[in-house]
């Protein structure tokens, strides 16, 4: 029997290597190779309309030095920060609120859960279109209603002061269900006894939420925030359909700026440099968050 077991173990180990090998190989080709290509391109002045710019490593840092003095890049980072922070906070608040509402055990609320997750699974391009409808002055039921009662409201997406807010609203609408689902799952893990104990002690709803429920969902909220924060950096379809980065460049986030430099202006080297910085930024952010939450968890334990 032991010999047989050993053979089983050895056979398994060999089979496992065979099982993993194709996936590792494919992942390497489709993720590591492009990453190397990206960084290499960022060190060249590649421009597809100018021959001879490919693989020209004579001034490897040129793109990065230019970036440091590019006010449009700096502005795009700042717009990104504003967009990310407001939309993540919005999603957390709305998602948490709806989750608390849906946490009750009634048939209506169980059914409503499926309804509330629709915005999150819609194709982002469709989310863009339906908000485009909502923001178009001559089409939108909201704008036409306001005009009807004599209080016409100008369109948010064409107003430089409000365009970013319009994106934030649409993005919050699209992604609050993510926080909602995660919080709902966490709420259902809370044991019944502390809740009952608090109620018997005369705690009001706010106290129950703050001191009994909140400690249980705290870490879930942090994880949801991290995911949404990192994903908000990828915002593209909404901006593409709603504002195209405008008016002017008030909604041109870094991702959009990189897209324009590469795909519109054919400045591939420059676009790659921005994308490389974005990847680096995302990794630094993940690392910092991992450290911070790690410390928080350690303290909580």
């Amino acid at each position, binding site marked *: 029997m032991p010999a047989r077991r050993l053979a089983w173990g050895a056979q398994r180990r060999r089979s496992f290597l065979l099982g993993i090998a*194709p996936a590792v190989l494919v992942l390497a080709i*489709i993720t590591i*190779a*492009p990453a190397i290509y990206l960084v290499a391109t960022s060190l060249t002045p590649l421009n597809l309309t100018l021959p001879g710019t490919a693989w020209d490593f004579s001034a490897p840092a040129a793109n990065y030095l230019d970036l440091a003095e590019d006010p449009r890049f700096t502005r795009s980072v700042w717009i990104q920060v504003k967009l990310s922070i407001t939309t993540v906070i919005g999603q957390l608040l709305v998602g948490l609120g709806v989750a608390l509402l849906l946490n009750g055990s*009634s048939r209506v609320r169980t059914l409503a*859960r499926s309804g509330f997750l629709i915005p999150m*699974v819609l194709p982002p391009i469709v989310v863009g279109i339906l908000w485009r409808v909502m923001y178009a002055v001559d089409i939108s039921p909201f704008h036409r209603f306001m005009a009807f009662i004599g209080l016409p409201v100008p369109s948010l997406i064409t107003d430089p002061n409000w365009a970013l807010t319009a994106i934030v609203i649409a993005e919050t*609408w699209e992604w609050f269900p993510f926080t909602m689902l995660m919080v709902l799952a966490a709420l259902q893990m809370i044991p019944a006894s502390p809740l009952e104990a608090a109620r018997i002690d*005369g705690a009001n709803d706010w106290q129950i939420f703050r001191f009994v429920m909140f400690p249980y969902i705290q870490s879930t909220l942090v994880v949801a925030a991290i995911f949404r924060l990192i994903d908000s950096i990828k915002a593209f379809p909404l901006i*593409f359909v709603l504002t195209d980065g405008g008016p002017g460049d008030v909604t041109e986030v870094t991702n959009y700026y990189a897209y324009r430099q590469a795909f519109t202006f054919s400045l591939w080297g420059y676009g790659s440099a921005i994308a490389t910085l974005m990847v680096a930024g995302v990794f630094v952010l993940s690392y910092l968050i991992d450290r911070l939450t790690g410390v928080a968890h350690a303290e909580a334990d």
Partner: protein
Amino acid sequence: MQRQIEPGPVAAPPLRVPPSRYWVQRHRRRLGDIGTVGLLLLVLFPFVWLVQMSFRPNADILGYDLLFTPTLAHYRALWTGAFPASFLNSMITSLASTVLAMVIGVPAAYALSRSGFKSSRRIALWILATRMAPPIAFTIPFFLAYRHLGLSDTLLGLIIVYLTFNLALVIWMMQPFFDGVPRELEEAAWIDGCGVWEAFCRVTLPLSAPGLAATAVICFILSWNDFFYALVLTRTNASTAPVAIVNFIQYTGWEWGRIAAAGTLVMLPVVLFSMLVRNYLVRGLAAGGVKE
């Protein structure tokens, strides 16, 4: 943690709540239900509005009244244009990428779940990194490389790009399902003369069927919903449905009825599918960060 709870009054004072508040307390549940339905209608309003627009005759496209004679004119107009081809492209790329990701990813997930390789953690980090990296970082090198490889504007090119997120997702999502299948069952199959992969196919795989289905559906949804990769890597031949919508906005302007109809068609499969996998959505979308 218990210390955080403010000590409540030792003996609750006799109930002297104002009558209105008492009413709220008594009907708490019903009020919550009404609030839920109201909020749901409010949240889904933009969605419902788009769907109803797609059935409205052009003459009355902006109407408010809900009593209108629905028409399929917009859908018929779509049927004669370039839209059906792009819809088919979406279908092919999403399905093919899902199947490919499952075929490559499922054995890897199983092996990672069972082997306890030291490098498992490193592979997990790698998967997390692909999940976190912004797509623009992939599109630039893929676009440049595809020009030389002859993969620009091809379905195969898109299918490969979709593997960048689908493969990682499959490996991540399937592992916990395999962790849940007891090893003893496989060992028993081995004693009965099965090889490692035969035991896997006959014993483990059927037991993980719900996980396989959920994972496949989520891969399909993610590929179907993609806009950015398809926008950048296709022109006409391989353009998918989301890109086709944008294209005809650019050619024919904002023809609302047709756009609404196209939007409705594109979101239909995803909305239906997502109801099937509701309980797995979070794990799929938060792949790399949420363990259960």
